[in-house]
């Protein structure tokens, strides 16, 4: 489990439930490293500002991460974290490596109208 203030996804069941219960979902799958921490920090900052988006993290080294690692959209990724945006259960955007606040905000606006 990651040491963040975000809600964590730890099982496949939880992953499926989050996707089925929320129209807009952003999941950051990573470790507690310098490329991942800034993305978690952005998500923590944005939780109150984007109530229509469910923000979750997922430990890259836990078995559940296969749901992100095995996505076609992440097959070419070679940098943590893998951040994936889902709308109505479908992947609408995925990014590899560090992203800043402005980059995440742009994706949220573009893909979720948030």
């Amino acid at each position, binding site marked *: 489990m990651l*040491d963040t203030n975000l809600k964590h996804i730890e099982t496949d069941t939880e992953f499926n439930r989050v996707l089925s219960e929320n129209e807009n979902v952003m999941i950051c799958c*990573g*470790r*507690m*490293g*310098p*490329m*991942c*921490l*800034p993305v978690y*920090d*952005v998500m923590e*900052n944005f939780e109150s500002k984007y109530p229509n988006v469910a923000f979750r993290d997922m430990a890259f080294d836990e078995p559940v991460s296969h749901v992100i690692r095995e996505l076609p959209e992440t097959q*070419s*990724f*070679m*940098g*943590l974290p893998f951040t994936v945006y889902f709308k109505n259960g479908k992947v609408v955007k995925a*990014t*590899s*490596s*560090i992203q*800043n*606040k402005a980059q995440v905000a742009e994706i949220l606006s573009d893909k979720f109208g948030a």
Partner: protein
Amino acid sequence: MTNAYDAIILGAGPAGLTAGIYLARAKKKVVIIDEGIAGGQMILSHTVANYPGVLEATGAGIARTMVKQAKSFGCEVVTQSRLLKIDLGSLQKTVDVEFEGTYSAPVVIIATGGIPRSLGLETEAKFKGHGISYCATCDGEFFTGREIVAVGGGNSALEEAVSLSRYASKVTVIHEFDHFQAQPWIVADAEANPKIEFLMNQKIEAFAGDEKLEGVVSVDKDSGQRVTTKAEGCFVFIGYTPATQAFEGILKLNGRKEIVTDENLATSIPGVFAAGDSRAKKYRQITTAVADGTVAALSAIEYLDKGSRIPQIKLAASAG
């Protein structure tokens, strides 16, 4: 709307967080603002084993504890917010922050630290996360059995090259000079590693590849000979520059663009102090940043409590 504070601290690395802890404990109203994440360069350290009182911890772990400690004393911590405008010219200084508004205070402590140097190539952003990385610990395993390049010649570059050799089939260190800046024993470790090769005196010109990185193009600085090094990964460790651009022409900086301070870490403007890697000094460690934060905060407290009765700071004109 202006948010009034006793002190604004720019930068949430170990210097800024320590300053915040001291000021807040002294019952001053403090905000710490960082354009990135709290922790500064400290979060890049996978293992910290020389921080007194802590046997071993991650840099990120120490940073998180410092943030909690600062908040527990009442510090407000604002992260990932760009500084739009800084006015240090008046008794009441002001800082405009994107998304957050304007902050004002009689004291500003500059602890903006350093910014990782990038190669500044157009293709660098294109391959970020698709071959180009800045963290061997994070991304090294993605390059298992592949050929990679490590750029740089300092301690970080050579230590990370050795670390990456556990995964990669071959590591080529490309460095811009004909000698290393790293400590001799670190150079010796790298040179003794059979998986590591060296390409010296090179200027990197471009990254090659379509969707993924395929090679690094460099040119010999003397002969002009161009070389393409096959690489599926490129890890960049070329040091830091002080994050002081916003203070050029406002504060006294030395030739390396570091802020010049006196021994109490006062700058050339009364009420403005500097701490950590953004100021001119020789040694840069978490412990020295923490020491700077302490001195800057205590000086700031004295300034706040005594105000204009503190003598004007005089800085040597030839700092550099």
